């Protein structure tokens, strides 16, 4: 009782009891009040939000029902994040949501757009509720804004990261498609390597070749590097590793298309070229492989006159 009177004197004005209480409220209490308001008005705020989404023509790849279903989940996650002030659940939900909508063709600007729209719709409802009390409105916004911004950030970043993951996967798939391991004869595989080899691609090549050796029961592999753009020490090492790993699977490797420059690189890293099976060109390599496998290469006889 006495306390309230003192603070009234200090402020110099006769404020009503409600205002006094607000002054000494902790921000989390404000947040609680805010969350209660958002929960109470869930149905109409959500409807308003979905309306704004179709007005601005976002999420056109999804049906009305889908948008409504997702909007409900997003709204509830949003309010929960505000309430608990923790963002792990929201992060997980954002990743999950992204996983579902990215294949539908939803883009980053749409996701960022709808989250910002929700932020606006909720902010407006706060303006409407507390318009009579400017000081309280300010305090409520002080509590709301940082949390709302963090939420928008979390969802947007979660979406972008998921997109990046999908792109990485697609790149891996493309790399795999662009390097066929060819079975030319029984027990003989050919791996023509063309273009630039980065560490990712090199690793993938080795994996594919080793699996191919096992699947095809290859005894000889011809790796043709004529088309390799540039061979630095790292790539040369990958090549040596591939040859060694193939041997562990019982396959002999013949390397063809070795230019003098590449031969030099290999020698520089300590490869004993005498131990590595090298032949000038692919044709020669295949013939050598066939000999190793016990095929006889015969000239076609002249037809008798």
């Amino acid at each position: 009782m006495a306390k309230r009177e003192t603070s009234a004197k200090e402020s110099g004005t006769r404020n009503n009891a409600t205002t006094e209480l607000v002054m000494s409220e902790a921000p989390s209490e404000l947040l609680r009040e805010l969350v209660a308001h958002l929960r109470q008005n869930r149905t109409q705020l959500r409807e308003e939000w979905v309306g704004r989404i179709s007005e601005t023509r976002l999420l056109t790849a999804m049906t009305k029902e889908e948008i409504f279903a997702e909007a409900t989940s997003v709204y509830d996650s949003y309010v929960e994040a505000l309430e608990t002030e923790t963002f792990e659940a929201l992060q997980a939900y954002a990743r999950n949501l992204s996983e579902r909508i990215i294949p539908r063709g939803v883009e980053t600007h749409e996701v960022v757009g709808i989250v910002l729209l929700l932020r606006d719709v909720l902010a407006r409802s706060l303006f409407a509720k507390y318009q009579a009390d400017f000081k309280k409105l300010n305090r409520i916004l002080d509590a709301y804004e940082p949390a709302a911004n963090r939420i928008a950030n979390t969802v947007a970043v979660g979406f972008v990261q998921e997109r990046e993951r999908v792109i990485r996967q697609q790149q891996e798939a493309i790399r795999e498609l662009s390097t066929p391991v060819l079975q030319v004869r029984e027990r003989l595989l050919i791996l023509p390597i063309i273009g630039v080899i980065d560490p990712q691609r090199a690793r993938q090549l080795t994996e594919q070749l080793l699996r191919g050796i096992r699947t095809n029961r290859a005894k000889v592999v011809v790796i043709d590097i004529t088309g390799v753009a540039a061979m630095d020490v790292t790539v040369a090492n990958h090549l040596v590793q591939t040859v060694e790993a193939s041997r562990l699977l019982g396959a002999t490797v013949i390397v063809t298309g070795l230019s003098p420059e590449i031969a030099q690189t290999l020698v520089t890293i300590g490869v004993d070229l005498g131990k590595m099976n090298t032949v000038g060109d692919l044709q020669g390599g295949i013939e050598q492989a066939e000999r190793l496998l016990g095929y006889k290469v015969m000239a076609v006889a002249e037809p008798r006159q």
Partner: protein
Amino acid sequence: MEVPILKQGEFLIAMFQAALSDADLENLRRGLLQQVVKFRSRGVIVDVTAMDVMDSFASRTLREIAHMIRLRGAETVIVGIQPEVAFAMVQLGLTLEGVSTALDLEEGLAYLIEKSKMTD
């Protein structure tokens, strides 16, 4: 851990299991040599299909097995190294240099038969 050693004519086949400890590998090395002597085998196939990891110790043990068996005048061939295991091994620089390798049991037998024909 018991590792089955089978006799196939003049050859022995040892099927290494997964999860072999260093002590297991040591026992195997000794046991295998004893069997080679006992049966006067001309060759040994070590099948490591079940080994999901091959580290430096396993690699060294295999090389030692091959070396000791060669001293008895017999041939060793390692078969069944999984593609992923082979890849990991070469990253560690474990190449089993000097030890014969083949894809699987069938190839390993063919190799030993070929090899013993040559030395007949």
